[in-house]
């Protein structure tokens, strides 16, 4: 079987407790190359806990996260040594935080924010790093004249686009996103969504995107998990789940959205 015929990520019965409460219980799914999966649900439904477990930042109490590596077959990410896991996070995986401040280094320039991730995987040639940083600034629609400015001087939307560039510069295969459009104005959101759609298609990225915004997943996600009280109550093709929801909770969620 070639790698294309296998899921990139296989999640088996993932469970994580906080005290006696299961923040996330018995979640299983496969994520395929090029597939964008949305995780929706209200605050406290466990979607962020799930994302943290998936992205190697929170060890689950039970279950496995199996990753199809480029060259070394399938690994359980929690069986890796800490250094190996960190390398994976810096190369094959990306993580886009809701608040760009959590994903950027605010004290160094925009160019350095992008270049830093390349240097972490061994790039040393200054000219090449700067060229890559410039190219990525262009792709995320940030004016090149801002390359030496610190992200502090950027608007929220620009910071978010910079965070995305920083993640994508190492050509990751999976990107985890936590409410990436969360704190942004509606017009800025639309631009960011448009950019993400384009990048996901061009780079054939696999994405897990957590959001409470159903309009965001309708535009971006191929399929959905709907979570409630730590459990997946419904899963399937995005437009089918949104247009013909089966579970009472999903019906409530969909019918509660205000039409603009």
């Amino acid at each position, binding site marked *: 079987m070639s790698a294309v015929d296998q899921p990139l990520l296989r999640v088996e019965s993932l469970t994580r407790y906080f005290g006696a409460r299961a923040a996330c219980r018995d979640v299983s799914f496969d994520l*395929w190359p090029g*597939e964008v999966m949305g995780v929706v649900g209200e605050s406290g439904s466990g979607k962020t806990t799930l994302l943290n477990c998936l992205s190697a930042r929170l060890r689950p109490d039970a279950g496995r996260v199996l990753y199809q590596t480029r060259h070394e077959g399938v690994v359980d990410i929690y069986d890796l040594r800490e250094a190996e896991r960190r390398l994976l996070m810096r190369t094959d995986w990306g993580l886009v935080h809701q608040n760009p401040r959590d994903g950027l280094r605010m004290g160094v320039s925009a160019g350095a924010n992008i270049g830093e991730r390349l240097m972490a995987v061994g790039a040393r040639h200054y000219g090449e790093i700067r060229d890559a940083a410039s190219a990525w600034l262009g792709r995320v629609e940030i004016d090149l004249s801002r390359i030496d400015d610190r992200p502090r001087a950027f608007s929220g939307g620009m910071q978010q686009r910079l965070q995305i560039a920083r993640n994508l510069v190492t050509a990751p295969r999976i990107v985890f996103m936590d409410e990436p459009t969360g704190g942004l104005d509606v017009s800025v959101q*639309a*631009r960011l*969504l*448009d950019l993400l*759609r384009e990048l996901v*298609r061009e780079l054939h990225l696999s994405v897990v995107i957590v959001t409470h915004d159903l309009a965001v997943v309708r*535009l971006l996600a*191929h*399929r959905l998990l709907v979570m409630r009280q730590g459990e997946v109550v419904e899963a*399937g*093709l*995005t*437009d*089918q789940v949104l*247009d*013909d929801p*089966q*579970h*009472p909770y999903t*019906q*409530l969620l969909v*019918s509660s959205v205000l039409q603009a």
Partner: protein
Amino acid sequence: MNELALEVGGLAKRFRLHTQGGVEIEVFRDLDLAVRAGECVALHGPSGCGKSTLLRALYANYAVDAGSIRVRHAKGWADMARAEPRAILDVRRRTMGYVSQFLRVIPRVPALEIVAEPLRQRGIAAEEAHSRAGAMLARLNVPERLWGLAPATFSGGEQQRVNIARGFIAEMPILLLDEPTAALDAANRAVVADLILERKRAGTAIVGIFHDAEIRAQVCDRLFEIAPFKVAA
């Protein structure tokens, strides 16, 4: 006779409205339908009988409760009633197109891009996709000055023509059409009729809802009656 393109067997659909006291609405049951390549079937029946629901179920936009929706796809068959999301999306990318009544506009994305997208999804280069999209929009009399604009502000008829262009450009083997001419004037209705006849000659199997009797007579080979469902006592 041409080969089968679409075969529906024992299809059943009911809606359960959990937020409205658990009301159940049964739409159809034991529905069978077979459509051959090059054939155009018009769904028929009174308003509310489930024509659009059936069309959406064929596209897997609605879930079904029983039965199969077999689609000739990639040298084999795919069952839209049961397939995994990525398999359904692959059918939609390469085999089955759907022209809904209303265009779901994407903020900021210009008309030309919306029309070109089905080609881009199949890996056709931007330049060729855009030039084919432009030709299709021109054929449907969408003025060139609108191509670079997002269709949110277009008239109903213009939006529908963008939608039709998007649906027809990919030359899918199966097309689902939900009232494709509802908001169009006579000249544009004629263009759509031509497009449909052209696709039929190329072997596309078409299932549609056509309220316009003239169009229906012109493009459809037969009617498929959705019998009003009687709720069992």
